[in-house]
């Protein structure tokens, strides 16, 4: 256990019980995020990347059929030793999350301003509506929303997808969390908006020194965002290392497949990718020493 790390995951296992027995989804994952570091977890759908973020968020532990074992340490505290209410107290304050589809993550029956008030009450229970509005307006300017007042008086369905995504980012960061979980932010948006929101998010977390665990299926998206990358395949980390090392010299067959699957701007046709390959189960490759 390393108390200096923001997030330290050791031998994390997750299985789901069903009537036909139990299915193991994560087979012992090690992952760490240092303070202020941006780490990406990349893999295909069903590889276990989203459930990992749900475990860090502390919601998976409350699912009845799920069995979580291993150690998840957040700033020196073992999450497993916390009661469900204590884990809940971390959410929205110390750990916050940005979801894939911003339009469905925002409650459509409340105005954006009221949602910000709710979020701020997590850290400052007695904050007034007026003060919450002021602080919300200030952080909306940080995500390049010029007419903050109009946005605060709107409902999520009155705003565009890109605007909602910026609202989500602002909302996730307003309580100055230590760790931000971003689960494929912007995949539901078009490419220009996605690129813009990613660069906004990068500037903001850099400025606030927030640690980020970024989840994506596209290595191209994380190339300019992450300091380090973990590649996950069917519940196992298959390769990890600094971003430059992964891109310059991908060693694991699965990482190589994942990289070649991205259509190239320079052309060359659609690559032929094997569905399953035994070599994808090769042992983990680590670039350099762990932090």
């Amino acid at each position: 256990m390393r108390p200096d790390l923001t997030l330290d995951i050791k031998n994390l296992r997750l299985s789901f019980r069903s009537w036909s027995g139990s299915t193991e989804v994560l087979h012992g994952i090690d992952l760490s995020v240092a303070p202020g570091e941006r780490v990406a977890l990349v893999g295909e759908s069903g590889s276990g990347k989203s459930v990992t973020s749900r475990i860090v968020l502390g919601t998976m532990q409350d699912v009845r059929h799920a069995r979580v074992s291993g150690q998840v340490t957040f700033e020196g505290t073992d999450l497993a030793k916390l009661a469900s209410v204590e884990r809940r107290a971390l959410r929205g304050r110390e750990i916050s999350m940005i979801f894939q589809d911003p339009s469905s993550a925002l409650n459509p029956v409340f105005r954006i301003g009221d949602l910000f008030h709710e979020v701020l009450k997590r850290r400052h229970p007695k904050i007034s509506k007026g003060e919450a509005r002021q602080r919300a307006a200030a952080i909306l300017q940080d995500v390049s929303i010029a007419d903050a007042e109009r946005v605060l008086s709107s409902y999520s369905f009155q705003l565009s997808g890109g605007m909602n995504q910026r609202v989500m980012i602002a909302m996730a960061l307003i309580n100055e969390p230590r760790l931000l979980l971003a689960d494929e932010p912007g995949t539901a948006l078009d490419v220009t908006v996605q690129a813009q929101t990613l660069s906004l998010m990068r500037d903001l977390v850099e400025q606030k020194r927030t640690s980020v665990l970024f989840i994506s299926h596209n290595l191209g998206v994380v190339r300019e965002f992450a300091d380090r990358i973990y590649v996950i395949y069917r519940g196992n980390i298959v390769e990890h290392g600094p971003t430059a090392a992964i891109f310059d010299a991908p060693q694991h067959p699965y990482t190589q497949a994942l990289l070649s699957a991205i259509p190239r701007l320079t052309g060359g046709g659609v690559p032929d990718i094997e569905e399953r390959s035994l070599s994808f189960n090769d042992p983990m490759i680590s670039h350099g020493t762990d932090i």
Partner: protein
Amino acid sequence: MPDPILSIRAVSKEFHVGKSRVQAIDDVSLDVFEGECLAIVGESGSGKSTLANMILGLGAPTSGAIRFKNVELPAKRSKLHRRQIQLVQQNPLSALNPRRSIGASLRLALDVHGHGQRADRPDMVAALLKEVGLDPDMATRSPSGLSGGQRQRIAIARALACQSQVVVLDEPTSALDVLVQARVLRLLNALRASRKLTYIFITHDLSVVRNIADRVAVFQKGKLVEIAQTETLFANPTCDYTSTLISAVPVVSPEEVALRDALANVRVF
């Protein structure tokens, strides 16, 4: 130049929202030739889906005409026209009826259009599944039990069930992860060659466009701002908006970074 299979002539579309008027498509003319893959790119709200809907007959143009094989398409389409121009949607989960098995969904397309003999239809369903690379035994399963890539294959099979000639693909791979996307794109390429299909491929991902399309039409705010062969467009994009789109593509190799930086006049990321 051969005759175009689909010809869009001076088409405009207006929507009335309350008292305001939205010009979704503004005087667009373009031709689609038989057997080609024409990509339509543009950000959300640029009118690309509105144009697709009009091609499919799901909304009549406010002015202008759409011609299919030199015959003007009426506002209310006959079954024959609907059969010839088919759609594959972005999200296959919402495109397939969750209460109907895969086989029944495909069978329904055949039944509605009275395609083939009744007795042959189960075999036709099996053949369709095989054609899109799925196990014919999958016919009894429901959409919820399939992966995203398998569902999209079903949606493609359904669009092909009645020997359609033009397929409108509305962001068919944007909901899929990169590995599945590569496989679905390969399938689409193979089907285009084997069935001599014409694709209208709507997307906002220019790296996909580069690898699958013959020609590209760029839309911005309802207007057609650029149309060119894919090679020409990437060698020398003439309008700023096209280079903005190129600059937003996530890239992985040094060659791509060089190309993107050369083409992009503004850096978004």
